[in-house]
């Protein structure tokens, strides 16, 4: 089970790296960076997963079997940062498109 998740992580990161290295289109570059980011996020969130665990809220957990909240906080931060980076990349590609008329 867990190996399957890690395989997916590696698969996503390799696809993203391939895209960043070999794609010339700016939108596709931004998409590849997003794919790498999703791979890393999936890796982090799978670290905190427990079979049958529930959301990490103390009052709701009768037998204290909860998923770890720290990776969730980490990927929340990473998602926000990645949103900023993607927005910046897309706005730069709009500006480049306006001047050069191609992506």
């Amino acid at each position, binding site marked *: 089970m867990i190996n399957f998740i890690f395989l997916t992580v590696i698969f996503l*990161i390799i696809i*993203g*790296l391939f895209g*960043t290295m070999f794609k010339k289109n*700016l939108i596709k*570059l*931004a998409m590849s*960076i997003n794919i*790498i*980011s999703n791979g*890393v996020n999936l*890796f*982090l969130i799978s*670290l905190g997963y427990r079979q049958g665990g529930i959301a990490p809220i103390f009052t709701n957990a009768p037998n204290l079997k909860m998923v770890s909240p*720290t*990776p969730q906080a*980490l990927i929340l*931060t*990473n998602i926000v*940062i*990645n949103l*900023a*980076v993607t927005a*910046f*990349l897309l706005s*730069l*590609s709009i*500006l*480049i498109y306006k*001047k*050069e008329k191609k992506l």
Partner: protein
Amino acid sequence: MTSHLIILIIAIPLLGAFLLPLLNKFGKRIKYFWLATVLGLTDIFSFFLYLLIIEKGEVVYTLGAKFPLLVSPQGFPIRIILEADALSGFLSFIFLSIIFLIFIYSLKILSNYSFLDKFYVLYLLLTVGILGFLFTGDFFTLFVFYEISSITTAGLIAFFRSEECFKSAFHYLSLFAVGSLFLLFGIGILYSEYGFLNMGIIAKVLQFSFLDKVALSLIASSLLLKAGVFPFYFWKPEAYKVSPISAILLSIISSLSAIYILFRIFLGVFGVNLIFGWILILFSIFSIFMGIFLAIKENNIKKILAYLAISELGYIILGISSGIVMLNNDFGFKAIQGGLFHMVNDILDIGLLFLIIGVVIYITKSKNVLEIRGFGHKYPWLAGFFLLGVFAISGMPPLNGFASKIIIYESVFHLSPVLTIIGILGSILILAILIKIFAIIFLGISPEKYQPVPKTAMAVIFVFAILMISIGLFPGQFTSFFINPAAEALVSQQNYICK
């Protein structure tokens, strides 16, 4: 008050950055006054922090609670932790002083451009990113500050709003987005093994397994990317070619802080590892030579200086990493001292050259500086200071570059004489390249008439020159007050980690 100095040093520029667009409505003077207050106050605080550290030892600041309830088995609070010791305190004081000087320099030089308020917002945020690198005590905060400095640097690269700028900013940002995700992946591997993000805890429980080495190489490669040395130097000339001079200097400072945190993690968390040290020595030699050989064939002045900046960073890494390799004898400590000393001298020397080139670009408004002839005829002071910078960067006595490079040469000699020869050869080649540029731009007679040099810029150049000469004339005093405690702090990591 004194216990909150670290967080104030980070929080004041952050607050200043976000208040700046509001203050923009009240006119130019208030905005510049606010900027000067924010940067000056932060600088003064960092000096007090340094004095506090010298007096009482390392300062550890736990965010959110003074006495946190949740504590790890090793006795560390599970929170965001900021730490400062003699090395990071010293570097923050030096860097903040130079950032303040660069702000004064860019007052007049950049005054003709629009979007200045946004420029200064990014300027302050990049300062926050640099300070976060210096003070961070856990890995995730490191990642956040890495992203802050990457995004703001990309914004500063796009400042001139030409097509080239946008392309360069796009490439920079996409490169560093990938780099920061590698950093996060490495941090995630460490977290998966030990369940902690705090550097101190990880240093205690680390077993140096295969996965740890993978994590170390991921973290180190992303930090080397930020520093812009050998395997990842390619972004530097492209980025420096189009960005304004003030942004270039800030970018050099963020490279230096990346080198700082690289060695902090390397020595503090992973311990002395000879193989990794030798790899870094190899990288430093390659970056010294790569920078110089690529600078020879280049014909854009900003690109040439960017390549020389790469080779100067190579000297710093050569000093510190060979110090780590031979840490068991006395010369190792000496080499680390030389490397840390060269950090200060690097930003002063290459900074002075960049500042003078910025003035030349401002006065002549020329696209290609290397087409200018006889500039020294009209501006002998600028020519003199440029020559001073050339001599300092190539390690001529009695200037500051000599003071640090001689320490590096003498101590590295005991590791391998080849390294010293390479270092001296590199310095000679740097001198040759820069003397050629000096002759092209400044010598001869110019038929054209230009406006006078802006007074603020000239004053900053003068301060840089005074600092360089005084450090060069009194290296002993400077070393004993700043460098010795810093090198002690880098070597004796146990104090830093175990608080």
